[in-house]
Structure formats: C-alpha cells, structure tokens
C-alpha cells in the first residue's frame, strides 16, 4: 500500500471526537494501601466520577508511576489543585467520561513500601496484576482495566501487559523504550551520562521524599510541593516514614552502569541492562493480543526508533503515532517552525486517549496495525500499515572534495579530510536527550555549533525530497587513537544559509562491527551487538568502516535547499567522552575505494 496523504490521516481526528454530553461532572479523591502477594503495601489514589450511582460499574484507568502518584502541595496551591494534578492524565477528562482512575506509586517509591533493584523489575511488573485484582474487586469496577503513561509510566503501561491479566483490555505506552540499552542508556554504545545521572539524582530524592532537591533543578516544583502525599489513613505519617526507610536499599541506574561498556555486562544483582527492556517480554505481550496505542516524537532521544521497532515486531493490534513534539508532548519540537504551539492540545490529547480506550472497550476494537506519522516541512499527517511506507527508495550522497556532498561516487583514488576531535563540541542542553527530562528542544544554534565540526554540504537540490525513515551513515576513517565516538548530524540548509537540524546518530567506534548474528528483534539500521566479543579497538592509522543508523525522521527538503552532514567526536553536555584521555585526530576517507556516504530513505509521492 503506497502511503496515503491527506487530512484524514490525522490520528487525533481518526480516533474520533469526544461526546458532546459528558456523563459526569467532577470527581472524588481517596487513597489507600493495596497489599501485594508478598505483603508489600502499594499506595494508591483513587478518583471516581462524582454522582456514580449505587451499583453502577465503570472501567478503570490504571496509572503506575515512580514520580509520586500524588503530591502534598504547599499553600496556596493545594487550595486550587488537587493532589494528582502533575499526573498525565489528570482526572477531569477520564472521570467525566465515565472512567475510574487508580494512580499508584510503584514499589520502592513514593508512599509505597518495598525496594527496587532497577526500573521495571519483575516484582514491580507483577504488582500490576495484584493491583488489577484489587481494582476488579471494587464495587464500582466493571472488571475492565486500561492503562497508559508517558515515559517511565508508558513502560509500566506496556509491562502491565506481560501479566496477561484477563481484566486488562488496552494499553497506551507513550514515549517508552523498547531496548533500554540502545534507546536510552547507551545509544550507539555511547553512554548518555547526563540523563542517566540526573535521572538517578531525581529518583533518589523522590524516593527519600526530599522535595528540596527540586530547588536547583526545577524550582517551580520546589514552590509547589513538599513531598509525596501520604495515604489518607496515615494520619501520623508513621507508614510514610517506614516506607521511605525501606527505599534506602533501592538501587539506581547510574551507579550500576556508569562504568560499563558492553551490552552483556552484568549488573550487581546478576541481571543485565536488558532486564529493564520491553523486548525480552515480546512473546508474552503478543500472547495477550492486547491492543496498543504507542506514541512518541521524531525528536525524542532514541525512543523514536522504539516506536518503529515496536510497530514492526509486535503482532498486537496497534496504533502508533509519531509527531513533532518533545518528550511528554508539552512543547512543539519542530525545528522548522520553532514558535508554533504544540498540537494536539492537552485536552485533545487526553480525549484521544479516552476515545482509543472506548473503541477497545465498547466499540469495534482495533484491527491490524496503523502507523500515523507527521512529516515536517510538509506539515501533514500521513498513515501507513507497513514500515517503511511503500514507495520508498534509498539514495546515497557521497562525501566529496571541498566539503561537499554529491549524489555521484568520487572518482579519485585519493581524497580524505582530517579532523582533530573538539571535545567542547555540544548540542547544548535542549537537545533530543535532555528532553527526557521534559525539556523543550532547541537546536537553533547549529550554525555556531557546527563551526567546531567537520561538515559536508550538497548543492541545492533540484526538486523537493521527502526523507522518511532512518538515514544510514557509512564512514571510512582512520584515527590516531583506539577508541572514540562518532556523532553525525543531518541538517537542512536553506537558500539563505540557515541551518535546521533534522536528526542525528552516534556510534562508539569499538562497537563498529556489524554483527552477522540475527538481532534480538527486527531493526531498520545496521545491527551492532554492543557485546564484548564483538568489540574491537581501532588500530591507529588503519582504515575502518564505521556504519550506523541515524534516528528516524520524516521531513521534506525543499527544492533549492541543501543537505548537510556534520561530524563530531563528542557531545560535551550529554554523552560520555571517548577516549577518556587524549585527543584523537580522525581522517575521513572519501574516494573511489573508500566512498564515505550517507544513505537517505526517500519517499516517492503517489
């Protein structure tokens, strides 16, 4: 099926409109502890539609978070916001449309008891089943549960499926990883030390109920809250105190992995990094046949590829959505229209979620798989049932002399450019990785930033070109050092020389081997195992092939614009430095024998 273009491809319209008349107005809030199979108590906040009739039964949205299910707000804020107002969704829309909501603190966090060895550990996943048992035993429950979330909570929503609980009818994981190593912690084998370290700092302080930590990093949060909300029966706070004491033995990701290099490195508890990944649970997810609505953004870290990977690997009925917003959908991230407000609005978004759940619970359900994706510059939604969309082709652009990119392969036997790695190179603190901390995305400084990089720019292109999918870069390099990281940026350059970031990717060169083994799941880029047995330092002075995928994107390069790639050896504010010592010089070979190139995925319009 050739991809179809048109307004009907907007997923928010495709999911339908909210009802004109809402069955309920307002909601009640209560809280309780739910006891798990092993005695651990999980804190839950329950929101029910006001005016629920006696004997009336409704479905429940289960939202499991590690970021405090409810907050003890300071004055005057608790006079105008309820304790769940920082969750996504807040209760208003779901309850007005006839859903109960149960928000929980996952074990080892918030006001819940227990301890956590790592994110999404087995006990945490099983707790979801115990919570669902509790939900369906409540007098207001119709025994149907749906679940959603964004980021961490998106993954708790996906992992809930693994339990194969008969009550669970649909899941909506938003902005969630598929493979914790490649999508988040070590993209391209390069350690995302900033996010992992800051996330660990956030988690540790949340788990210790230390709201003062917000002051330097999120001062608005410091003004708003003094900590997690205790369960309402815990009047003397003794249970909260005891729960927090149990969190003291929590393990945090940064301490566990910051000194690791390989995918198959073992963590202190004997597991590996993929213990926190979704993909090892693929069979159980498929066995459930639970319909899934998964969504993310082209500019969200490595999570963009997770959406595509999920789409091409899972057999579940699925709607997948890829937009142009930041992590969490609070800001537009479209670098071509930086002043635009984000769409959909929060209200439109939440109503779309409810519509999806209504379709699954009361409608005809979801058939097959559909991926909706937003093409930037074209500024249109498109949809496809296959990936890559049909009508797609690939075109190579070769690195050429005078720092150009050419559609023709070089004809010379020699041709190379040397670049001494500049370790001050950076994409700043508003990039696709910092957005994991809910930051907006701003790559507007590329012109200045790329002065430190090695760049290649094409001539103006002769007709509009749509790039949809994962670009793949192949560089033939030699280096003065055995280790390093290669970061490659793909940009659009307009008629006035303005540079707009499109996408990027990176690879630690010791992981450059393209494995002959089957990857653990289908992927759209060359397969690097990142395992110890496949790692190989460079031999200084010896040419090596470094080939990897850039993150998927969908953008139109206009006629008259130019394509540009920029090569760096570091991204100071985000990634670890390789090598730890020394300053390599790399030579990029661009000649007939070593034709370094970028392979662009193009879509031919109908």
């Amino acid at each position, binding site marked *: 099926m050739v991809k179809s273009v048109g307004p009907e491809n907007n997923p928010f319209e495709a999911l339908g409109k909210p009802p004109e008349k809402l069955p309920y107005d307002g909601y009640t809030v209560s809280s309780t502890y739910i006891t798990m199979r092993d005695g651990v108590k999980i804190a839950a906040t329950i929101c029910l539609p006001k005016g629920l009739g006696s004997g009336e039964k409704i479905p429940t949205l289960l939202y499991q978070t590690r970021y405090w299910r409810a907050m003890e707000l300071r004055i*005057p804020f608790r006079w105008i916001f309820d304790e769940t107002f920082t969750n996504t969704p807040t209760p208003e829309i779901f309850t007005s449309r006839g859903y109960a909501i149960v928000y929980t603190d996952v074990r080892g966090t918030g006001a819940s008891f227990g301890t956590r060895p790592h994110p999404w550990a087995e006990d945490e996943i099983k707790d979801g089943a115990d919570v669902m048992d509790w939900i369906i035993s409540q007098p207001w429950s119709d025994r149907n549960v749906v679940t959603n979330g964004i980021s961490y909570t998106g993954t708790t929503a996906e992992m809930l499926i693994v339990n194969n609980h008969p009550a669970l009818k649909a899941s909506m994981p938003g902005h969630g990883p598929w493979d914790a190593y490649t999508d988040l912690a070590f993209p391209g084998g390069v350690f995302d030390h900033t996010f992992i370290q800051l996330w660990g700092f956030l988690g540790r302080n949340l788990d210790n109920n230390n709201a003062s930590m917000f002051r330097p990093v999120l001062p608005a949060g410091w003004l708003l809250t003094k900590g997690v909300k205790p369960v309402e029966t815990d009047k003397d706070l003794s249970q909260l105190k005891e729960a927090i004491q149990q969190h003291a033995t929590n393990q945090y990701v940064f301490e566990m992995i910051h000194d690791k290099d390989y995918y198959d490195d073992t963590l202190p508890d004997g597991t590996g990094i993929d213990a926190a990944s979704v993909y090892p649970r693929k069979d159980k997810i498929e066995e459930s046949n639970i319909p899934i609505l998964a969504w993310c953004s082209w500019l969200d870290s490595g999570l963009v590829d997770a959406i595509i990977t999920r789409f091409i690997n899972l057999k579940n009925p699925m709607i997948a959505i890829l937009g142009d917003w930041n992590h969490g959908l609070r800001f537009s991230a479209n670098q071509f229209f930086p002043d635009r407000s984000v769409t959909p609005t929060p209200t439109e978004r939440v109503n779309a979620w409810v519509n999806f759940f209504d379709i699954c619970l009361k409608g005809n359900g979801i058939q097959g798989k559909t991926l909706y994706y937003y093409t930037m510059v074209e500024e249109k939604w498109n949809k496809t049932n296959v990936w890559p969309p049909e009508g797609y082709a690939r075109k190579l652009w070769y690195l050429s002399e005078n720092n150009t990119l050419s559609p023709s392969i070089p004809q010379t036997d020699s041709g190379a450019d040397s670049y001494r790695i500049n370790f001050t190179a950076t994409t700043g603190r508003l990039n696709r990785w910092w957005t994991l901390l809910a930051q907006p995305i701003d790559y507007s400084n590329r012109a200045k930033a790329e002065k430190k990089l090695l760049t290649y720019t094409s001539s103006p292109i002769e007709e509009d070109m749509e790039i949809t999918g994962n670009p793949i870069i192949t560089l033939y390099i030699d280096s003065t050092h055995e280790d390093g990281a290669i970061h490659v940026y793909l940009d659009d350059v307009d008629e006035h020389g303005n540079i707009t970031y499109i996408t990027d990717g990176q690879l630690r060169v010791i992981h450059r081997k393209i494995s002959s083994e089957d990857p653990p799941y289908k992927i759209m880029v060359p397969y690097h195992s990142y395992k110890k047995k496949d790692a190989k330092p460079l031999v200084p002075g010896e040419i090596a092939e470094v080939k990897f995928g850039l993150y998927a994107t969908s953008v139109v390069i206009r006629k008259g614009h130019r394509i540009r790639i920029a090569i760096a050896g570091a991204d100071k504010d985000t990634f670890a430095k390789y090598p730890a010592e020394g300053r390599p010089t790399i030579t990029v070979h661009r000649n007939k024998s070593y034709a370094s190139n970028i392979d662009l995925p193009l879509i031919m319009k109908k």
Partner: protein
Amino acid sequence: MAEILELFKSKLQSVIEVDCDENNLIIILNVKGEIQKSDILAEPHEVKDMLRILGGLTEDVSMEIEIDNKARKIKLTFQNKEDLEKVKSVVDNIWERTIHIFDELEKGNNNILRGVGDFSD
C-alpha cells in the same frame, strides 16, 4: 504558557477572598472552593512562608495567625497599623507576584528566587 499562567492567576483570585479590618488590625483570607477541602487548610508557618517567598515580605512582621479549618479562614492579627499595612500591601499583590515568579522560572530565570530563603518545614 501565558494562557496557563493567566488561568492559574484567575483560579487564585477566585478561590481566595481577602477581607481587611483596619480598625481591629485584622486581615482574613477566606479560602473558597472544593479542592482538597478535607485537608488541613494551612499551618501558621506555611502562611508565613507563603507571604515571604511568594509575597516578597522581607521584614519579620509580628502577627498572630489563627487557622479555622472548618470555616476555611486564616486570620492574621497585627499589633499596629504599620504592620497591617505592610502585610496588606503584600497580600494585595501576592498572586500577581506568584505568577510573575512562575513566568520567570519558565523562562529559565532561577535568580528570581535568589535570597528568598527556604521553607520552614
């Protein structure tokens, strides 16, 4: 963001009504609305923190603070007219100032909180 902050300000203004009795040196904050009604309205130290951090009350003004959880009222009693007027001036502008603080923080200007001290809890 501007819209959200305006909504935020209008919620504060609509939920909190301020009465001032200059003759008896009293300011009363009446908290209306149904949100978190069963919770403790406020502790005295929270009121002082709010006036200082959000309101910008830099002086240590002596006041008696009485909280009526049931009636949802906070009564501030002063010893002299000068003190009342200092706090009244802060209360009259506190929501505007609160929104301004959040707006500045949203823009990345964390210096807006420099020198305000810490919460007392």
